[in-house]
């Protein structure tokens, strides 16, 4: 499949934006009291969300998990309201109710970030069922980790989706670690993609640090789904460069392993590919990088300048 220059540049752009956004969060987390709660980042895994979301149309839906920033930015979420929500400010996309962990951005069809590991797939099944029920030519992508794959809910969701031929694309972001457990300590089969055969659906493992490979696999899965052929499972093999959260010292991850994966960073990989293809110049890359940096600085400024909600606003939004 030929991937348009525009799409390739879009992927590089959302990866750069996401990297600046999360690198900034890493710095902000070092400042006592700046960001409430936990901080869970996807640094180094940007090819998955950026590659997958580039393969989607705006009306397609994503259901994401606790490592959501890249997925949401790639789906088109506004960095300002996202950052303000991470700061738990009133101007945040969820008025300070969700914080960084449960970001919901229905306006870009990213209605749910669930931090309950394995909870996304059943909800994605419901969202995809609605697409099928209404006869929409849309798909739902569900991102979950290799750790989540141990949850029974993921099996239930895949079984139902395959049975009803729902337009879901299950994307297992296999980043080698589930909490402090290495993949082989929590999963007996070295291939997560193999699980697809249990549900008679296509399963494919791709290099999760190759945005173009992720794009291609998702685009093909999307076409199958729209043709009524049901769900697919795509295992994106990548690596968790940061800890489970920013407070995690990663004492159980070999330093040389982290270093080796950092060398396989998806951003220079796509950048060099684009340069080699002659689709962009070094100056274009610099301009993209500068713009991403400026947008993130602006988002931080917006969040810092925004007020906290008043305490009584806690009582709002329980019932419709």
């Amino acid at each position, binding site marked *: 499949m030929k991937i348009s220059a525009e799409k390739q540049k879009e992927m590089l752009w959302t990866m750069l934006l996401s990297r600046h956004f999360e690198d900034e969060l890493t710095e902000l987390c070092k400042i006592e009291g700046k960001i409430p709660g936990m901080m869970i980042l996807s640094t180094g895994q940007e090819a998955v969300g950026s590659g997958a979301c580039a393969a989607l149309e705006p009306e397609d839906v994503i259901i994401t998990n606790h490592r959501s920033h890249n997925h949401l930015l790639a789906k088109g979420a506004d960095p300002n309201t996202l950052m303000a929500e991470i700061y738990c400010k009133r101007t945040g996309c969820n008025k300070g109710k969700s914080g960084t962990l449960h970001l919901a951005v229905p306006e870009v069809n990213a209605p749910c970030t669930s931090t*309950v590991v394995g909870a996304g797939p059943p*909800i*994605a099944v*419901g969202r995809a069922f*609605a697409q099928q029920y209404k006869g929409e030519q849309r798909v*739902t992508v569900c991102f979950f980790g290799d750790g989540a794959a141990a949850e029974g*809910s993921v099996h239930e969701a895949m079984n139902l989706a395959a049975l009803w031929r729902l337009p879901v694309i299950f994307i297992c972001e296999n980043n080698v670690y589930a909490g402090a457990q290495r993949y082989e300590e929590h999963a007996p089969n070295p291939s997560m993609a193999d699980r697809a055969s249990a549900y008679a659906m296509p399963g494919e493992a791709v290099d999760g640090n190759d945005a173009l490979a992720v794009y291609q696999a998702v685009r093909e899965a999307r076409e199958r789904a729209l043709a009524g052929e049901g769900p697919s499972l795509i295992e994106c093999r990548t690596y968790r460069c940061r800890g489970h959260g920013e407070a995690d010292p990663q004492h159980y991850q070999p330093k040389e392993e982290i270093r080796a994966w950092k060398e396989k960073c998806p951003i220079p990989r796509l950048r060099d590919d684009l340069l080699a293809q002659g689709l962009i110049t070094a100056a274009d890359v610099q301009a993209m990088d500068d713009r991403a940096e400026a947008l993130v600085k602006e988002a931080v400024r917006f969040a810092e300048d925004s007020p906290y909600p008043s305490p009584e606003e806690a009582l709002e939004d329980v019932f419709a």
Partner: protein
Amino acid sequence: MQKLGMGQAVNQALREEMHRDPNVFIAGEGVGVSIHLNPMFPTHGLLEEFGPGRVKDTPVSEAAIAGLAVGAAEAGLRPVVEIMFNPFFTLASDMIVNHAAKLRYLSGGKSTFPLVVRMKSGAGFGAGCQHSHNLEAWAAHCPGLKVVMPATAADAKGLLKSAIRDDNPVIFIEHMGLYFAPMPVPENDYLTPIGQAEVKRPGTDVTVVTWSGMLGVAMAAAEKLAQEGVSVEIVDLRTLVPLDKETILTSVAKTGRLVVLHEATRTGGFGGEIAAVVMEEGFNLLKAPLRRVTGPDIPVPASPPLERFYIPDDEQLITAIKEIL
């Protein structure tokens, strides 16, 4: 007026709402092709009428059924899903407790989840404690859920129609003991408001607050006590969340005495909540300490004499009432 069991009343509500709104669909284990080829059951005949596109038989997957409801509701459909028995709520509880109930709040009010989870409950069938366990207090403890437990077939129809039209997640618990007892049900399209209790029997000496299958027990006790000259007022809550405090307090103001009656086990039961509300907001109305009559703190046993011992009866209620008269 037609006479229907509660299952048939639920069936009529589902049928009418599915005709009214194409966004309403039902899903669950055996909601279409059921093992029970019995017109007294709630989803009987709906598959034939609405087809497999809207009457969805699912695998045995409570988490997936509840997740289906959450995702579909967010997309604007109005799912009515069935979790076969109330104890299986535990298998669906992540989707209901952490998602259906919380995602509106987490979205800052951007998303709505107009879904209904129907469950059967109630002891009295020798089914044992993994099929008989009233967990309404668990659901009521979870902000973001409405909890409805009708005691009559007429209320079941009107309340289910309201639940389907409600923009919030509603937990709708049906007592199996009421499926087979024909009761009058209006034939027209009517809505019973969620959040309004009803005085099912007026009285002056003592208030009994109850719901679901225990209404019949309360009525029987009131009948017996009437022979002795004791006038019992019976408030049927119908909805636990939102709680109609006003009807409870108005009744207690009239009678000065309160007994709360429920089938669920005692500790942490919803009766404690009603007792606390009356102590906080109506202490000066009470002429005597209030009482709770509830199931004992045991799982529901299967053996008939043991199960009968579990279920509160009219004699226990009469004893409690007499203690505070």
